């Protein structure tokens, strides 16, 4: 593969694949248009669209709750709403955003749509199971919404016993049932992905030709399968205790409420990687496409995905350094947390190295990817502050934690989600979105995000505890700044919703491969035909077969 200094011309930007020549009737969106054909579909692409629509709805609910929280915190004395209203707002924000947006966000939408395309398959291994998982998701959503409509829940998304089992007077039970059910949806999705990636790859698509997106989803699916059942058990125990007094955490009878925290975090820490790994996969597709250069260190990133997914099972105790855990356990968990955090944060060096000597085009998806790289490295390294025992004793449960995980979840996952949404939007819908509006929103979100969450790092080490409806007056300035940032962020979120929907009807028709990107999903029409490929796709010799290749490809693939 040659790499020359003058490939930066525009000539190779011409899409090499044929224009979308399919008749409208042949693509998956227009093959059938009855309501029934959507709600009973087994096509992974349509199910992905069902998921995309539902999680967008949940994102709006969660975002409104976040708006309520930021509104309340403009004043220190809680004059805007009662403590109860505030507590319910942040609980709904957490429950909805974690379980109904972040966890399904990238896997259930992009993963569902793209994994079969990327590996050259006609569908996932179990299409009916895939549809079932969406219905299970919606059933869980129903219970959670019931809890919201009846009056909300105020335990925080972590549902710690005994507050959730014996003391809260709110609608905890439906929320618990909803979250338990949603877990099964995750398990079914993960199971489908694992089996599909193992058994459905096109001839010639070996493991080390898989895009990092697929590797990341494989790792994510392993976490779905191995961690979710544990929280299901923990939640079932909570439901039995709250609903039927068949409990094991009740301290009145010698039960140990911290045991619930162990079970909870055994899932919920790996769940962080459920949210992070797919985002890494998305960025690993976007960056090479917009640099027209092979991903730097492909094998390292692939192994790292699996490695992170494995080590992440052994660090849950770092959420409990100050909860009466033994000092030895804390030391071990702290050390292991360093071992998992550093390799994940330094993945950003791989993306940076990919940009080096590339031929860059700063379209919307790339802007999101660059924002992601910057925010994710900060989020990752501030995680190490929290993993350091002595520092944790100070900033545990303060706004430092809130800032840290929003840098990972919003700066990481949400930016990756939006970047991926713009990157694959032509593939999903067959339409191009408005590029100028896309860039404006990307910049707006990046700025709004930092104004919202950077002050929270400072609030944290100044000692403002999280989940406070009222707070000492000296923290007001930074809180107002944060709330102001949230309004910028909100504006940044509203734009894409408008221009993306607008593009569905009025957008320019998309070519099969608008970004001149590599990967089998670009070898078929936009939108793809019902069975993905009209003729079996040809698997390329190496993954990320871009014009500019790094040195290593000659060493490894010669």
């Amino acid at each position, binding site marked *: 593969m040659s790499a020359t200094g003058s490939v*930066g011309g525009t000539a190779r930007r011409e899409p090499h694949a044929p224009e979308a020549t399919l008749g409208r009737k042949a693509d998956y969106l227009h093959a059938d248009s009855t309501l029934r054909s959507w709600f009973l579909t087994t096509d992974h692409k349509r199910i992905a669209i069902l998921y995309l629509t539902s999680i967008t709805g949940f994102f709006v609910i969660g975002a409104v709750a976040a708006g309520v929280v930021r509104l309340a915190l403009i004043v220190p004395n809680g004059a805007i709403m009662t403590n109860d209203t505030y507590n319910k707002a942040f609980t709904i924000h957490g429950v909805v955003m974690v379980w109904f947006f972040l966890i399904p966000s990238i896997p259930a939408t992009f993963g569902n749509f793209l994994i079969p395309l990327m590996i050259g398959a006609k569908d996932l291994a179990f299409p009916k199971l895939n549809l079932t998982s969406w219905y299970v998701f919606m059933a869980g959503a129903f219970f959670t919404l019931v809890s919201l409509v009846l009056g909300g829940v105020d335990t925080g998304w972590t549902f710690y016993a005994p507050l959730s089992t014996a003391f809260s007077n709110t609608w905890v039970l439906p929320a618990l049932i909803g979250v338990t059910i949603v877990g099964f949806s995750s398990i079914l999705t993960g199971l489908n992905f694992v089996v599909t990636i193992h058994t459905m790859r096109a001839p010639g698509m070996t493991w080390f030709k898989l895009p990092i997106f697929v590797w990341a989803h494989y790792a994510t699916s392993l976490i779905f399968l191995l961690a979710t059942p544990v929280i299901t058990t923990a939640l079932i125990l909570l439901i039995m205790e709250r609903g039927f007094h068949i409990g094991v955490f009740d301290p009145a009878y010698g039960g140990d409420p911290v045991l619930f925290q162990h079970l909870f975090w055994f899932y919920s820490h790996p769940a962080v990687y459920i949210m992070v790994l797919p985002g890494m996969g998305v960025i690993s597709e976007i960056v090479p496409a917009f640099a027209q250069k092979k991903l730097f260190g492909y094998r390292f990133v692939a192994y790292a995905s699996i490695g992170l997914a494995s080590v992440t099972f052994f660090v849950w105790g770092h959420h409990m350094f100050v909860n009466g855990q033994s000092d030895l356990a804390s030391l071990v968990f702290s050390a292991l947390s360093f071992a998992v955090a550093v390799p994940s944060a330094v993945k950003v060096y791989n993306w940076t190295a990919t940009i080096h000597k590339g031929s860059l085009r700063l379209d919307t998806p790339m802007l999101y990817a660059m924002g992601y790289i910057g925010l994710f490295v900060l989020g990752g390294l501030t995680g190490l502050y929290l993993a350091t025992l002595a520092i944790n004793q100070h900033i545990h449960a303060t706004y430092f934690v809130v800032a840290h995980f929003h840098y990972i979840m919003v700066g990481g996952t949400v930016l990756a989600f939006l970047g991926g949404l713009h990157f694959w939007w032509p593939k999903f819908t067959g339409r191009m979105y408005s590029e100028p509006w896309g860039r404006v929103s990307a910049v707006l979100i990046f700025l709004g995000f930092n104004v919202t969450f950077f002050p929270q790092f400072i609030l944290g080490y100044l000692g403002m505890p999280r989940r406070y409806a009222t707070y000492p007056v000296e923290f007001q300035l930074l809180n107002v700044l944060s709330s102001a940032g949230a309004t910028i962020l909100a504006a940044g979120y509203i734009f894409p919703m408008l221009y993306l929907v607008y593009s569905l009807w009025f957008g320019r028709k998309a070519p099969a491969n608008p970004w001149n990107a590599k990967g089998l999903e670009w070898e078929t029409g936009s939108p793809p035909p019902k069975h993905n490929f009209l003729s079996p796709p040809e698997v390329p010799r190496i993954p990320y077969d871009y014009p500019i290749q790094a*040195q290593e490809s000659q*060493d490894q693939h010669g």
Partner: protein
Amino acid sequence: MTPNHAALELWPAAVSATASETDLLILAFTVLTLLLTVPVFVAITYFALRYREGSEADRHPSGIRSNLIEISWMLIPFLLTLIFFVWGARLYVASRNAPPDAMVIEAIGRQWMWKFQHPTGQAEINDLHLPIGQPIRLRIISQDVIHALYLPAVRLQVAALPDRYTDLWFKADKIGTYHLYCSEYCGTDHSVMGGEVTFMNPGDYQDWLTHAGAQQSKVAAGRTLYEAYGCAGCHDPGSAVKAPSLAGLYGSPVKLADGRTVTADETWLREKILNPNGDRLAEGYKQVMPSFAGRIPEDELGRLIDFLKSYTAPASGKAAQATP
């Protein structure tokens, strides 16, 4: 006694050697973070400009093997951060093992207040007075849900668990008044479950114990009765029975259901507790409170009223908004 703070401060006060060392650790860690991230920010920006599509840049492969780079940029930051693991762990272990001569203060958390008991028997609610120059160990437990006692000035917090004791020790060396928080979410009034910790010279502390402390103890004892007789179960904000809040009630006018307005003085409070019948009912409430006549001894009734006299709404809470 309110802590004096500027509108914006960028570093919190530290009153113990451990706290100062924690600050040093945070600062050093921040330097490392900048070392590891700023090059990334600079590089992304620089590459984005230098290697823009169409620019005349050298795009020949650099010839450096990627495995070597990969391993070095994974290993070097890891080893650097390990220094901080060791430093943090050492400091943590030191802060976990209290010296045997530490003065022990009992701390009890419940929804939504802290009760502290001094070794000499004085008790106080939500606020804590402590001497400097002496190791102090807080022995902490919760009566209901999980709470956590957080003292930012000494950079320490630990959970208050319902089923076992946890502890926290420090040696303050600066006098002053600082915040004291509950940092584990515990329900409705989580954010007002806290007060102030005041570090005093040992002499002042002894003074406080004999004067203000004794007074505080009486109030605390009244508060205990307020809990014990179940008053809190209905009258505390957030309780299932929406009884009027009693915070700030003493001395204020009360509108009654029959249209009269009375002033809540000692006598009226006493009668109201013993015989809360129709013509003393506050406007807008139903008659659900039982009579305590014959159920509460006179001396305890006195202490309870003493408590109600001193019971004001937490500074930042909203308990006072409800009029009785």
